[in-house]
């Protein structure tokens, strides 16, 4: 009776199952169906098979959106990982001023992507933004650099701002990781006369392996979903230079009212999410790590 299913237990499963089925699972499957339609969302839909797929793949739109998404993924990993790691180690130290710094480090976490995006768009404004004023003040640039309006800089700025927003979160992860390293390891290293960078590379870093894995998994999978910040900062532009998969999907479906093409991009996004998760689970043992921590 203990481990069997009673009608009562079936009932308890219903709320979560119904919500998930209707508003997550079924829509996912419908997206696959929509990707074969020619439809503006209002008139009668027309089944056109794989035409949307061949169009999106042939005109390079999908490849471009995928490459931009990968660019965000790699760029934000490269920026966020070393900085968060160092900040995490920094904050885990016993010095008073470090925890004082920490009070400020975590403040960006309190604001939504929309709030962050709007604020930065003013800080970077070519006419009155303070970044240009400061650069001009120290003799760099003419003071009217349009950071988000030029294809050459827009993506880099977007990646930097994504990192600005999420580094505090990953710092928090690493700080927690460092605090779990047994002090006896450091004490032993000290007795052996190890220098600080030795302890960092031979104790701290290897001990943070699992934190590094979780942080990496979250950065890579999270990169698929950065939409809010890009919407507010560049709206995918200039041109298509920041039109990552999620952005491109939104514009096709809700701006151009091309449900079919938008759905193709949505399905690619879902596949990317699933494939990425499987690859990461297989190569990093993310789940094994969790079950290992469960015992602690």
């Amino acid at each position, binding site marked *: 009776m203990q*481990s069997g299913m009673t009608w009562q*237990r079936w009932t*308890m*499963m219903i*709320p*979560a199952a119904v*919500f998930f089925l*209707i*508003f*997550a699972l*079924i*829509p996912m499957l419908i*997206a696959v169906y*929509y990707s074969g339609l020619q439809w503006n969302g209002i008139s009668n839909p027309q089944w056109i098979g794989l035409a949307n797929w061949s169009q999106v793949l042939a005109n390079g739109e999908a490849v471009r959106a995928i490459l931009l998404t990968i660019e965000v993924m790699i760029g934000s990993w490269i920026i966020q990982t070393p900085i968060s790691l160092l900040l995490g180690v920094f904050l885990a*130290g*016993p*010095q008073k001023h*470090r925890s004082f710094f920490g009070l400020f*480090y*975590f*403040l960006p*976490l*309190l*604001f*939504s*992507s*929309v*709030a962050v995006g*709007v*604020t930065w768009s*003013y*800080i970077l404004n070519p006419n009155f933004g*303070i970044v240009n*004023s400061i650069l001009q003040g120290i003799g760099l640039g003419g003071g009217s650099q349009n950071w988000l309006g030029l294809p050459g800089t827009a993506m880099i700025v977007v990646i930097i701002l994504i990192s*600005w927003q999420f580094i505090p979160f990953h710092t*928090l*992860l690493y700080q927690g*990781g460092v605090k779990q390293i047994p*002090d006896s390891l*450091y004490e032993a*290293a*000290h007795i052996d006369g*190890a220098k*600080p960078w030795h302890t960092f590379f031979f104790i701290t870093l290897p001990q943070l392996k699992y*934190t590094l894995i979780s942080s990496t998994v*979250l950065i890579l999978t999270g990169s*698929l979903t950065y*939409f*809010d910040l890009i*919407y507010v900062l560049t709206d995918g532009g200039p041109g298509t230079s920041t039109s990552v998969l999620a952005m491109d*999907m*939104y514009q096709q479906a*809700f701006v151009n009212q091309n449900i079919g093409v938008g*759905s193709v991009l*949505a399905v690619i*996004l*879902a596949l990317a999410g*699933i494939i990425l998760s*499987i690859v990461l689970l297989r190569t990093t043992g993310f789940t094994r790590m969790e079950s290992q*921590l469960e015992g602690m």
Partner: protein
Amino acid sequence: MNAMPEVQTKMHTKRSPGFSLRRHPWYNVVFSLLGFIWLIFSFYPIFYMLMTSLRSQQGFLTGIPWMPSAHPTIENFVTVLQAGFGQFFLNSVVVSVSSVILIVGSSLLSAYVIVRSKNKFIRLVFNVFLVGLAIPIQAAIIPIYIMITKMGLYDTLLGLILPSVAFGLPLTLLILVNFVRDIPNELYESMGLEGAGDFTILFRLVMPLSIPSIVSVSIYDFIQSWNNFLFPLVLTQSTQTRVLPMAIVSFQGQYTMNVPVLMAAVILSALPLILAYVFGRRYLLKGLLAGFGK
């Protein structure tokens, strides 16, 4: 010395890993300097929000942009409040609180069944939920939009809540299952011997024990819902259903170059989290991490 390694480690358990740096002062100085540079980079934009929100529009155009105004004013906050901010704030509260209650409530019921039964079908259902972790909201938004429209829920708060619940479930369920699984079997057994049914066990045993993880996961779900932008962007349009992230975007269209008013709106939109940070930082940070870091 070697005879008492236990004592040795115990003596140092209070110390944090960074203690060895104390013996290398210059290293500490360089590290702190880098930490200070990051402090400026991460805090300055927040400081910019605050000082700009306290400037008059006139002062914004003529004052020194990177220094606080000599004549701070709260007129921008008044402007924001008069522009219907209270209504938008209330909408956000309704959506977020209802979502959290529905997500956590239904996850807890399911987590209990998933942990307590060995049924193969239930195991499969749990695995399907876990696949949901990998699927971004953006991948399902088009059919959700069509569906919500057909249900007559377009531009309603309920239409925002329902899909938010669905996408909040997988992670919440995973965290609660991991927690409920750690409750020792003997506790279930002793309650079972007293003839307690599933609901009694859930309310008398599981819920009280899970309070810490319920609190963390509720904070996490609240923040997710509070800051969600894609659902309101696609599923609402009128001022009656406007939630805060949408309000900021529409203020941006309305007050284009009135940066002080916008910064006031940005600060007010984060009010619950700012208060939580001031009064319960530990809980907030723990909630932000959800189940990712232990």
